[in-house]
């Protein structure tokens, strides 16, 4: 029996290891190419260890490729979206789980329906609304549109968690003279840290990696580009001979922060993603 089991497990491990290599290889190739020179790449693109690591590629991409600006934009957008989503959605989730008011049902139904509206389809209208609100000349337009887009899922996750926090706590605080806002801020919010962490990570991933909306919004404004949009523009800039080391350095600059965060906060990433699938 034991031998049989080993016998069937061996090919299983081979498949698992093979897929692991496929998962990791593109990232390894990206890092290794980012440290090469162009002649090195054309000579042997498969060599994973560069002769001497060419760190200057990163400097060149950062300054001449404008990745410094893109990085700053991505950072500002992601940070602002994160804070705004956590703030607005936790307030709404609090109101719909803690109080009963006319129109609550309507809000709940609207949220369900919105889950099925493809945000991609309404991109042109959203662009024009942002334009008429004069939001397109700064990062504000991208920030606000991204916040609006990630609200529904966040409200679902947070309200599901809020429902598990006993109402007795609210009542006790009420007797002690806390108003609704104080109960939100001092009673429920501190107890909801796990779900806030989940929503924070999901929102971070969504905002940092967002492409379609920032692309549309920054079409005529290159200084507002985010990392993914800037990278694509950087690639289009090479007419026929793409400088892969520089391009890969740019890709690495965009990818390393989120991968690093994943390595340190893995549990939250996986847990958070699993929650989005199950709680809807």
């Amino acid at each position, binding site marked *: 029996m034991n031998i049989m089991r080993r016998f069937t*497990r061996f090919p*299983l491990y081979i498949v698992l290891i093979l*897929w*692991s290599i496929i*998962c*990791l290889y*593109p990232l390894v190739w990206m890092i290794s190419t980012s440290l090469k020179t162009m002649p090195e790449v*054309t000579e042997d693109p*498969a060599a994973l260890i560069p002769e001497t690591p060419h760190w200057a590629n990163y400097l060149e991409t950062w300054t001449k490729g404008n990745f410094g600006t893109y990085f700053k934009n991505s950072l500002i957008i992601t940070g602002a979206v994160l804070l705004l989503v956590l*703030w*607005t*959605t936790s307030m*709404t989730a609090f109101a719909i789980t803690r*109080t*009963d*008011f006319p*129109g609550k049902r309507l809000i709940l139904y*609207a949220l369900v329906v*919105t889950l*099925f509206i493809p*945000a*991609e*389809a*309404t*991109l*042109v*209208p*959203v*662009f024009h609304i942002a334009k008429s*609100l004069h939001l397109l000349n700064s990062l504000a337009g991208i920030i*606000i549109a991204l916040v*609006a887009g990630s*609200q529904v899922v966040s409200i679902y996750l947070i309200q599901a968690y809020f429902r598990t926090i006993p109402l007795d706590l609210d009542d006790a605080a009420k007797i002690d003279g806390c*108003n*609704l*806002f104080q109960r939100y801020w001092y009673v429920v919010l501190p107890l909801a840290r796990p779900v806030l962490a989940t929503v924070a990570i999901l929102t971070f*991933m969504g905002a940092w*990696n967002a*492409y*379609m909306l920032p*692309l*549309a919004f920054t*079409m005529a404004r290159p200084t507002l580009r985010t990392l*993914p949009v800037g990278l*694509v523009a950087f*690639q289009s800039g090479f007419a026929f001979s*793409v400088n*892969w080391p520089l*391009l*890969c350095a740019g*890709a690495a600059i965009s*990818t390393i922060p*989120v991968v690093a*965060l994943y390595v340190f906060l893995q549990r939250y*990433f*996986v847990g958070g*993603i*699993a929650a989005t*699938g*199950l709680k809807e």
Partner: protein
Amino acid sequence: MSVFKQAKKNWDSYLLCTPTLILFIVFMVYPVFYLVRLSFYQWDGITQMKFIGLENYARLLRDPIWWKSLKNTMIYVVAKLVIELSLALGAAVVLNSKLKGKNLFRSIFFLPVVTSMAVMGIVFVGIFSPFEGVFNLILMKLGLISQFRDWLGEPSTALYTVIGVAIWHDLGINMVFFLAGLQSIPKYLYDAAKIDGAGSWQQLLHVTLPMLKPIALIIVMLSVIGSFKVFDIVNVMTNGGPYYASEVVTDYMFKYGFAGRGLGASVVAQQGYAATIGMGLFVVIAIFTFIQLKMGRIGR
């Protein structure tokens, strides 16, 4: 108590909901009406809008590239559904067992999910490129091809190459969904099955899969809706090319809406037509969601 009085008493609740509601109405609800209206107009996005009735819709029905992009999107949806979800289910079942190193495998399989599709799409363009690309070299060394191919440049392979990369990116997310589903199955069911003499295959067929069904339906729904909206990877890797061989609905819409990357379709934006393509996507997603909800109900 009248509704008005009740509303007045709960002013603080409304205040808490206000930021969400404003964003919701301005950026989610109003755009839908705007989209419907825009689809009846001819507009470059700058000058005066011109009402043209149903002309955009008539054009959509006659537009071979719209149908082509819809067909490609369907291929993408089905391929992701069949290949990716079955692989993800397999991975989840294997990595839910008592296997040494399963946690490490789980972490690695999930890693691509956190990366940006657009950014990794560009890296993959390098990997698949015809001359300096590693993919060709590896296949050559394994003896699978005899000459270098332009995977993203040939109409017959472009779409499938993109699908392959999309599966690379998304397999982990569905694996995690399935794992969450597997872990929610109560252990006593397996104990009962064992007592009845069921082997591991029988347990899989008669306990795991039936118990997984409700969650599997959600996973399928999320996958299908998500796949219909595919944009990033196609826009970055092929931009719909060559000759619309890998064009998908959202990317085609984007070309008319923003006259941006690869002005294949138009130099001046045709936002009315873009809105009509958006409406098309809307209808298609609505139909499929409806079918799935119905099927889910029958299955229950």
